[in-house]
Structure formats: C-alpha cells, structure tokens
C-alpha cells in the first residue's frame, strides 16, 4: 500500500510544490508505514523526487497530455492510485491541482480535504488540520473514506530532503476520448515574471503610493529580492496595476514567507488574503493604520523616503550575501 503524490512540472522541470508535496507524502507514509509513489506527467528528472523521499516514480509520457487537462490528469491519477493501492493521494494547492482534485475524489470515492497545513494529527482515524474562513481559523477534519485525497496548503510544509532510492517505471494509463472533452484553445502566461502563487517574497503597494507612475520603486524592490509584485484592490480597480496583482478576500491569496505592504491601510478584506504569509512588514506614514496590528515589523514613515533607502540597503545586503 502506498501514498500517491501528484507532482507538477513545467517544461520538464519540477516545480517547488512538487517537492513539497513529495516531502509531505513521505511524512504521511512514515506515519502509516507505507511507501511513496510519485506520478509525473511529462515530468522532469526523477532524482529531484527521490531526494524528497519518493520510493517509486510512475512516469507518464504522452504528447496528448502536454497541456494540463483536469479530466485526463484526474483519470491518470485515479488509475495510478488503483494500481498502487494508494490509501492517500496528496496534491498541491495550485490552481490546476484544485481543478482536478474534486474529479479525482469522486472517481476514487475518496473524501477530500484541501488547504492542509500539517501532517495528519492521527492516521486512524485519519484527521487533518486545514485552514478555513480564508485563513482566519483552522479546522481539524476527519476523513472517513478508505481512500483519502489531501490538498497541501501553499508554503505550509516546505521541502524536506529525505533521500530514498526510487524505482522508475513507465506508466501508460488508458484514457478515453471523454477525457479530452474540454479542449485548450490557448494559454497566456508571463514566463519571465515571478508569480504571486509561486513567490517566496511579495512586495505590495496600496493607494498610499498616489499613482501608477510611482511603481518603479516597487518593481525595483521586487527585482532586488526576486519577489512578485502585488497591490490592494483599489489600486487594480483604478487601473494602476493589472487585476492579476490584486490581493485579498476578493483577489489572490498570498502565502509567501515575506509580505511587504507599502502604503496599504490593512483593511480586513485585504488582510484576509495575506493571513497565510509568514512574516509581514508594513511601511505606512500613519501610525494608526490597522496594518500595524497585523504586521511583524513596521516602519512609520513616508514611502517616498523609506522605500528608496530600503532599496539601496537591500542592494548592499544582496551584494554582500550573494
């Protein structure tokens, strides 16, 4: 019996979330005395999964699966789960994983819990802790079915190196034409920018920055830190920044290691989107701004003075610590 894990890759390279998911699967497998089987659809170098504790890698190589396809990918995973007698299937919290997980769960008659932040509290009964109410609380939920699907929360567990020697096996699932009923017409993705979903650091600006012309210093900070840029809702509503950067209850969730908020007041709807971020820094000229209550570090000051100085200091720091 095994713990199955869906490993995501892009252009033949595993994503960090693939390694996190394998690490997490390894953790569950150790608690249940099982092995870890990774499923890689047109994946990368298997040693990257081995390193995190995969005992077996099922490699699916199929040009028809070049683009992500939730129905077909879910079928691949379901067939792999049956073949491997999987008791738990681990997926990430990427948009694609969340797309396929409910299909997979129904296919396997498995109970599914997303946004899981820690290893199961117990494995019999199987109980996991996961975030609810948009990170304002946690729930502990029991999954009662024989097979379980678990979605690992973003940036919650990390990559743990735990080498296993993996056997690598080619796997050719039987897919039907129904698996291709949803057709990809086009994909539009900026490949040169760090995305909010993947970023370890996010630099975010609010209405306090006065206008789109003042975003150079935000972009500069993001460049220095290898960070993604983000913004508050009014900023994207006014068209200062693209909608894809809007963070919060009605925008994107951020679960980065570091979130730097500049000229953002810290309204509850904004904070709802960033609760899962680990360290929060606020730069705001109003000491009464609610963000200071939610932040770990703060500077009370004018962004137009503080940010250029901070950028200089960060450049110096990066040069020394390169």
């Amino acid at each position, binding site marked *: 019996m095994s713990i199955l894990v869906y490993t995501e890759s892009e252009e033949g390279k595993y994503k960090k979330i693939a390694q996190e998911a394998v690490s997490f699967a390894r953790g569950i497998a150790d608690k249940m005395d099982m092995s870890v089987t990774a499923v890689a659809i047109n994946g990368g170098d298997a040693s990257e999964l081995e390193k995190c504790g995969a005992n077996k890698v099922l490699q699916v190589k199929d040009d028809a699966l070049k683009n992500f396809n939730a129905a077909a990918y879910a079928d691949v995973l379901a067939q792999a789960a049956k073949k491997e007698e999987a008791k738990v299937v681990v997926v990430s919290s990427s948009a694609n994983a969340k797309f396929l997980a409910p299909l997979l769960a129904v296919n396997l008659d498995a109970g599914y819990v997303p946004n899981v932040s820690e290893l199961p509290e117990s494995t019999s009964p199987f109980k996991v802790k996961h975030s609810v109410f948009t990170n304002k609380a946690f729930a502990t939920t029991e999954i009662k079915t024989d097979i379980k699907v678990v979605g690992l929360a973003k940036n919650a567990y990390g990559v743990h190196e735990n080498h296993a020697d993996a056997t690598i096996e080619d796997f050719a699932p039987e897919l039907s034409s129904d698996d291709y009923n949803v057709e990809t017409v086009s994909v539009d993705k*900026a490949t040169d920018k760090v995305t909010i979903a993947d970023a370890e650091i996010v630099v975010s600006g609010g209405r306090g920055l006065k206008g789109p012309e003042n975003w150079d210093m935000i972009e500069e900070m993001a460049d220095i830190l290898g960070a993604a840029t983000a913004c508050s809702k009014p900023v994207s509503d006014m068209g200062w920044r693209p909608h894809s950067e809007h963070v919060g209850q009605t925008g994107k969730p951020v679960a980065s290691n570091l979130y730097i908020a500049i000229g953002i007041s810290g309204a509850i709807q904004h904070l709802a989107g960033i609760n899962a971020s680990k360290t929060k820094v606020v730069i705001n000229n109003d000491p009464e701004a609610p963000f200071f209550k939610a932040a770990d570090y703060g500077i009370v000051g004018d962004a137009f003075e503080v940010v250029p100085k901070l950028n200089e200091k960060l450049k110096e720091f990066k040069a020394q610590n390169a």
Partner: protein
Amino acid sequence: MKILVCISHVPDTTSKINFTDGDSKFDTNGVQFVINPNDEFGLTRAMWFKEKQGATVHVVNVGGAETEPTLRKALAIGADEAIRVDAPATDGFSVAKQLANVVKEGGYDLVIGGRESIDYNGGMVPGMVAKLTGANFINTCIGLEIDGTTATATREIDGGKETLRAELPLVIGGQKGLVEESDLRIPNMRGIMQARKKPLNVKEAVDANAETEAVHFAKPAPKGDVKLVETVDELVDLLHNEAKVI
C-alpha cells in the same frame, strides 16, 4: 438554455469568526449571512445570459430554512425560481450529491458554482457535481461565452490565464471576472417585491453520506506586537537574522 446557479450561504466578509460548543461549531451569533461572493459573480453572469441570449435561471442551495433569505435575495437580483434542498450542508461531497440530483432532474445545460465558498474554502462542490452528473467541468472561470451548445471559458491559472472550449452540459467554478464588481446588482424595491411571489421550492433530500467531518476548530495563536523600527538598516538586519526571510 436552462441555467442553475449554486448558491452557498456564507458569513459576510467582515464577520468575526468564533466557535462554540467546545470549539466544535461555527458561532453564528451576530453574523450576517450573504450570497457567497463567487456565486454572486456567477449569478450576475447568468442574468446577462438571460437578458442577452435568453435563458431561464434557477438558483439552488442545500441547507436549512435559515438560508431562504439568501435565496430570496438571489430571486430579487433576477433569478426565476429557487430550490432549497432540505439537508444540512455537512460536507462538500454530500452537498454535491444533493445538487447532482437537482441537476439530473432539472436537465440543466449550464451549472454555475463558485471557485470556493469563503467559509470552509472547500473548492470542491462544482467539480464533484460535474463528475457525478457526467458534465464537463471548468474551474476558476473568469470569463464565459456560450454559442449554441458550445462554451468558451477563460480560466485563471497560476501566473496567467488560459482559454478552454467545451460542449454543454457544463459545470463551472466561477469567480470575479465572470462579471466585474461594478456589474453586481443591488436588489431594488421592485425586485424585492417580485421575489416574494417567485417560487421557492423546498425539495426533499436524497441519501447522501458525508465523507468528511470537521471535529474541531481553532483560531490562529494571537500574534505578538509589531516591532517598529526607525531605520532601514535595522529592518534588513531583523529580516535577515531574526525572521530569516531574506
């Protein structure tokens, strides 16, 4: 075209989140419930189809009688008919089973749900309904056009978007982008009056076992006070040596 919009009844975004009964239940005391924001975007897009292309729009909720004001609000926004499946919304799977039954009996061409409910953040009900009814499924929809029996949807992905095409029947998980916030409709007096006369049918539940059960809730540990610093040098030092994030 027959459209079904799935409406989840959730606490307003500004609600204080508390638990009762030994932290085993969400405390609804003083909480204002609303249409799940993702569903409101979907409902508004459904009204657009109704007005521009011709469609009947039904709304459905799986829940107790306390959710009826939320369904009435959906009627006031313009839905033609509401259905409440009289079953507790125990978990995503049991809700999906109830909804799948409504979808099969009603013969809907398009089922619009939300990317997730903002209470339990399951993000699973629409996908499960699709799989249970054999319909196509597209999640995180930020745009939807229907031409005859073919749907073209724009979907948000991490770091971009993609365009997908599928035949009806289709289930979507929708979000902002299906329509913009400025397109949302606040029910007017006439809408509210009409809503009182529109049918709200209570439907008996079918057998559906929950597969998961939330047994305990907790709030995150209270955060320590913010550390205010005077200089950027101090900040960089703390981020490197204390928080270890750079």
